[in-house]
């Protein structure tokens, strides 16, 4: 890595995560165990995956307001169709990814505001989910349940999964050639077009990848919950955006960090657990997550100012 990657601003996601983790351990030392860590971060895995999906969209200067509804729809398909008719289920999931890709091409081709299109799509995904599953229920496919409850040696599944997601996303987005081109799309799409790339194809690829991560989020969610409902993941939209920003990403300019985003998702769920350990009502949870977000952003602003002065 170059010396540029070790500015305090870049370390901020790690610092804020560590601060919350230490506070949690101080309040509840039983969390500092194999089982405790798993409980603490278990439900973060699907959020982390959805956050990477959101990060891909934010990376190309768009925003996806349909993540929550989309993951809910995937969860509904997984807990019903995929259990009863596996082939049909996989086909439906593949269709959803293609729909996402088509959406990306459409948004770019007609220069539509992504915020409006995805907001509209969230109602369509939500409606489809209700049609498939009018009331919560369903089951998880056996293999999925087995996968999500596996007990690896050394570290619990939640931690291993978080590391895997971070590593895979980092390789795909930051290190691979095509990931670099996609980041370039957010930095200066005209320059990418001038180099001879077809932009619609690149936008379709970006959205398609985001769809893949959305599907993975829905799969892991069902594996953990063993059931689902039409609005099981509705909080993911805002959590994923907050995770990307907490992780050092910016809304404009293709400046994102996948490792930071995974840390951001973990930080947000820690903020919730911390409140529980402090015996504060869960009603305050959303507010506390908001407070963490504002604190970290304020710290980032201070670092940015100082870097600008240097």
């Amino acid at each position, binding site marked *: 890595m*170059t010396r*540029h990657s070790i500015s305090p601003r870049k370390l901020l996601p790690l610092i804020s995560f560590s601060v919350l983790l230490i506070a949690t351990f101080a309040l509840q030392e039983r969390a500092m165990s194999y089982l405790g860590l798993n409980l603490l971060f278990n439900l973060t895995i699907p959020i982390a995956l959805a956050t990477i999906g959101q990060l891909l969209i934010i990376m190309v200067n768009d925003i996806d307001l349909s993540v929550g509804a989309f993951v809910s729809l995937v969860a509904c398909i997984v807990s019903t169709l995929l259990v009863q008719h596996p082939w049909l289920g996989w086909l439906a999931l593949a269709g959803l990814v293609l729909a996402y890709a088509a959406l990306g091409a459409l948004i770019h081709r007609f220069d539509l505001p992504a915020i409006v299109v995805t907001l509209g799509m969230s109602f369509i995904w939500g409606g489809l989910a209700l049609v498939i599953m009018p009331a919560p229920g369903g089951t998880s496919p056996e293999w999925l349940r087995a996968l999500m409850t596996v007990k690896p040696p050394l570290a619990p599944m939640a931690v291993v999964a978080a590391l895997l997601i971070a590593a895979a996303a980092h390789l795909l987005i930051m290190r691979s*050639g095509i990931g670099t081109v996609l980041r*370039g799309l957010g*930095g*200066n799409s005209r*320059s990418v077009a*001038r180099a001879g790339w077809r932009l619609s194809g690149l936008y379709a690829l970006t959205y398609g990848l985001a769809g893949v991560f959305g599907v993975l989020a829905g799969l892991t969610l069902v594996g953990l919950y063993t059931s689902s409902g039409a609005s099981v993941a509705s909080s993911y939209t805002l959590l994923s955006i907050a995770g990307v920003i907490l992780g050092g990403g910016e809304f404009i300019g293709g400046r994102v960090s996948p490792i930071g985003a995974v840390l951001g998702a973990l930080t947000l769920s820690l903020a919730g657990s911390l409140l529980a350990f402090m015996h504060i009502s869960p009603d305050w949870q959303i507010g506390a997550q908001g407070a963490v977000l504002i604190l970290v952003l304020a710290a980032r602003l201070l670092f940015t100012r100082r870097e600008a002065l240097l």
Partner: protein
Amino acid sequence: MNTPQPVEAVVALRGVHKQFGAVRAIDGIDLALAPGECVGLVGHNGAGKSTLVNLINGTLKPSQGEIDSHVTRGGRGSAIRSVFQELSLCPNLSAAENLRIAHPTLKGLGWRRRAGAEIRTSLDQVFPGHGIDTDARVDTLSIAQRQMIEIAIGFAPRGGQARLVILDEPTSSLDAGIAEQLLAHVERFCAEGGTVVFISHMLGEIFRVASRIVVMQDGRVVAERESAGFDRDSLVDAMGHVAQHAPSGEQRRHAEGSAPAGAASETVIEDAAGLSARRGEIVGLAGLAGHGQAEALAKLYFAGTSGWRAPRKPRMAFVAGDRGRDGVLPLWSILRNLSLSVLPAGARRGAVDRRAEATLGREWQQRIGIRSDDLGNPITSLSGGNQQKVLFARALASSAPIVVMDDPMRGVDVGTKQEVYALIRAEADAGRTFLWYSTETEEVCQCDRVFVFRDGKISAELSGAEISEERILAASFEMQEN
């Protein structure tokens, strides 16, 4: 084998026309670029240079005529490379990553290492001793370093070989030493059989590297000679044309017999950069677009008007050229758009005096000729020229003694222009001061005094009979060699 000609052109344009709607950007150009030559391309703003570049590199298709090339043209892997004046790297990526975007064959494991090596080799060739960190994100580098990376990417092999490199104002952000390295590399590159199209406003550089100079004007090639066939004066002559017939402000004023804004009247504006204006004077800001005129106006205007409260008697009023960005309020009616500047003056106890506003609207509708039955209609119902008139009325209706105009005639038809010239002249005679930035020489010739800008600084001050297209052009282009 099959070509009888001694040298086959890298790119040949035959009878090429390019139209954007009703605008003829390129109006019949024949041009052949041979291997080993460096063609200097010069012309004033809007002469069609950028369109020509985009036709040559394959970004645009000609409306008429044909373009032949025996090298890969357009798309990834193009042997024709363009380096643009405005920086066109991805700022969130490193130099090596930017090369990846323009490189068709950089794939597989270890591509970063190979990309880094290729961009470093290219940088070393063009700018020996550059000291640029090719793994640093581009937005952490200086403007000059970014420009150097862009040039290096242009000359890099990128899985093939650069046959034609088009450099559009490549030295505008480089200092003299680095620019000299580039010129030396251009000569080397041409000596090895490469072709370069070099666009610059630094005529010294053009004479230094170009083997042939092509002069463009109004989408046509008006002169094309070996560079030895030009000297500085004849080159500036070849670029100029417009409006020798249009009388200058001074001449017109003499013809009309009114008193010129003499040196006797008081100076109302003076800034550190040397810009000044007297009462009742029309001062022009000229030069090539983007050389600091708009910035100078904005600085002056904001320094004179910023504050928490809108004063009842404003010192300056502003006429925007970019209507959509900083002029028109698209959701408001014509009248509201017009009366915006006089609201503080016409207000009674904090409320707008609707009757006075309506009277003002009618008065200005007649004076400036806004073509609409009802000023309550939305401003967007008007044509561009009429919208611009509303913006003029907005500024002139205020009591401000100074009016700042940022290229206000953009997209305005000839008839409206004449009406507005007359209005400005009348207002100036009544004691108002105008600061007028324009990219059109014809408009600048309406002024009493002209400041020509180059590279963000004033390069010449012309007044009265000195104001001519030749003088302005000569001051817009760099004359000394570095």
